[in-house]
């Protein structure tokens, strides 16, 4: 069962306050709209994202076929599963949370084909200009190195 604990490293970056825009849907809609990702040209497989918000687990499926990308919310067999707090995921889609570091922290839990996961993380954007990772910035504020 999914634990309902706050993830301290999660950020609200990417959410636009005061609007209904949902960065998660936006990210997946964008994927579906583009339909093809040159960076995944040699990749085939299905990824399932289990996004948790403390109450629910939202499932998203991304089917990659030689770079062609389809997004679905219908239950299907997956080659890889990424379990992640929704806020952390939104940080990843905004470039403020690094996927690999989040995996090492245990904030993102990959299962199944890690190759597929490593390839997919190519699609997350880099940090916005001038952005310094939250954790490091916190430490700097506290005067730690």
């Amino acid at each position, binding site marked *: 069962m999914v634990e309902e604990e706050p*993830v301290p490293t999660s950020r609200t970056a990417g959410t636009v306050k005061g609007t209904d825009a949902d960065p998660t849907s936006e990210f997946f809609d964008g994927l579906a709209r583009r339909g093809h990702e040159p*960076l995944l*040209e040699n990749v085939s497989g299905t990824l399932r994202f289990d996004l948790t918000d403390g109450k629910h687990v939202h499932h998203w499926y991304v089917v990659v076929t030689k770079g062609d990308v389809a997004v679905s919310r219908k239950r299907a067999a997956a080659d890889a599963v990424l379990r992640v707090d929704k806020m952390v995921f939104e940080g990843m889609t905004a*470039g403020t949370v690094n996927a690999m*570091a989040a995996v*090492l922290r245990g904030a993102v839990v990959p299962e199944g084909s890690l190759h597929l996961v*490593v390839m997919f993380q190519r699609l997350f954007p880099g940090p916005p200009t001038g952005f310094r990772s939250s954790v490091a910035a916190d430490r700097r504020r506290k005067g730690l190195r």
Partner: protein
Amino acid sequence: MSGDLVQILEGNTFVVSDLRGDIEASLTDPTGLFSFDTRFLSKWMLTINGQRLNALSTDDLQYFQTRFFLVPGTGTVYVDSPLSVIRQRTVGEGFHEELTILNHEDESVELEIRIDADSDFADLFEVKDALAKQGAYNRRVDDDCLVLEYRRDTFERSTWIWASRDATVDEHGLTFAASIEAHGEWKTELHVAAAIASSFESRHWSKEERRGVKPRPDMARGLDKWIERAPRLDCDDDALKSTYRRSLVDLAALRFATRSSPKHALPAAGLPWFMTIFGRDSIFTSLQALPFTPELAASTLRALGERQGTRLDDFRDEDPGRILHELRYGEMTAFEERPHSPYYGSVDATPLYVVLLDEYERWTGDTKLVRELELEARAALRWIDEFADLQGNGYIAYRRRNEETGLENQCWKDSWDSISYRNGELPGFPRATCELQGYAYDAKMRGARLARLVWHDPVFADQLEKEAAALKRRFNRDFWVEDGEYFAIALDIDGRQVDSLSSNNGHLLWSGIVDKSKAKAVAKHLVGPRLFSGWGVRTLAEGEGRYNPIGYHVGTVWPFDNSFIAWGLRRYGFKDEAARVAAGVLDAARFFDGRLPEAFGGYPRSLTKYPVQYPTACSPQAWSTGAPLLFLRTMLGLEPIGDHLIVDPALPLDVGRIELLDIPGRWGRIDAFGRGTVETSRARAKHRGAS
């Protein structure tokens, strides 16, 4: 100090202990059980009836297994002990220790056997820099198992310790009450498991699971198979034979598989502190080992391709197309206090990636992998022109964007004073070191070959060749030091030559960027008295402002560097000179039991009758391990042409006869023979006269 430590490892899990097998680490002390860059045991201490033990001998059985022979006592030189204690330790997913106690007396004994255990869960980086921990510790007894835990936010690591027989387990260790009859024996197995958990689930070792844990029996067989698969070396020179075997065994120990492709092992950089992917080191080592173990190259290309940069990230010095420098798994990386997730701050790995891909295809004919990695290779080639030209003059240069924790020097000579003018002054940044331009040239030429042959894109091939030719023209004009007749080590930001004479010239020969008309002068320097010590080519020439025979990159001799220099000399037809360099370094290997260190002193051979080792923490180091392999290739003149392997030996006279049997490649398996003809000792004698 490291002489009194014992280390064993498997992948990136390793144990460093004292000669008794005990671990008593302070934060800065590098002993312990480490896995995924985290220390899982900082204390592991065996006592019998409250007494520590003394080491009689330590037997390194395999790189993953060691045996300690101990006796209880006070530490006198000669002991006539009623008891013998044997600890046999095998690294796996944590480690497994078989503890045996023999009673030599005519009557039974009652013993209290105790293992004290603790962990500070330090990140490797913390051990290096003595940093304080942020998270919280916990210790508990879980069903006869001692569990040590560490938690910081969602980051969770734990160590599980249990025994195969009944023990009293408390929060600080395990105690056994043993009764051993006269001339009897007592035994237990101790298991230490390193567990990585996440925010969603704790890693738990149930009693059931624990029972199933056994040391991996196939590890020794795996090593035998590895050696069997490699070509066999038969030769008159026993020292060379044992150097070759040492290299193969060490290379086996240095294999490391990432979690995303656990079946494809690639060479990590060094044992034990650098058991991870380093773009540069993994590529160079794969190149050296290609004629012997080509699968290492394939794994390296796959793993580095998977993690190729795709975005701009200043913290990680990442660009689209850039090949990573170093990957780490510890707490500081997890919390982005260090950029190694992965860190991209090297500028040679990217062009070298294309070089390795082409060289791999030339040996193996594996066009399938070249097709698979077309996207990555093209992105690497694009990176050279779009992201690496920091001086705006068409040359690769480097300057870190992560000013806090990034690397200042992003070429292989990465120490602070490695790049200097003749007068010893240091240039500012960005710096365009010369060997980078050679690698870029080579990458374009080789990329063109692959584009034509495998990607069926002759237009791209033509374009790359045109760019390469232009680069070569400019390079031979801009970097050539007229009054010295060699290539400057770098260009500074003003386009001025950083004009010292260095070993980098050898890499330029290897890359093919050197004009034929200039090659002779360059070769002369490489085996001349300012650069050649008699043991090998110095990193920086005698007479330069910063020259120091024991300076890390400013005078020492690096076996890895020399192996590529020799290859470069051969590329331009300087067979005898190549043999001379090979002979020097291989002679040096005799003084290190066949295991070449990272570097040794640049003192003239006439001055020190043996090579003076540069003190480093890491041994074996992958690209030193690979050096004898590349020397063998170079001395035998092995060159794949089409589906054939050309053999054109130029061996040092002292080496005598060499047979390298069953060389794998696109031709199946081929044998190569050679006999020493090159008088290399004359060169040494001449050098002696000169110095």
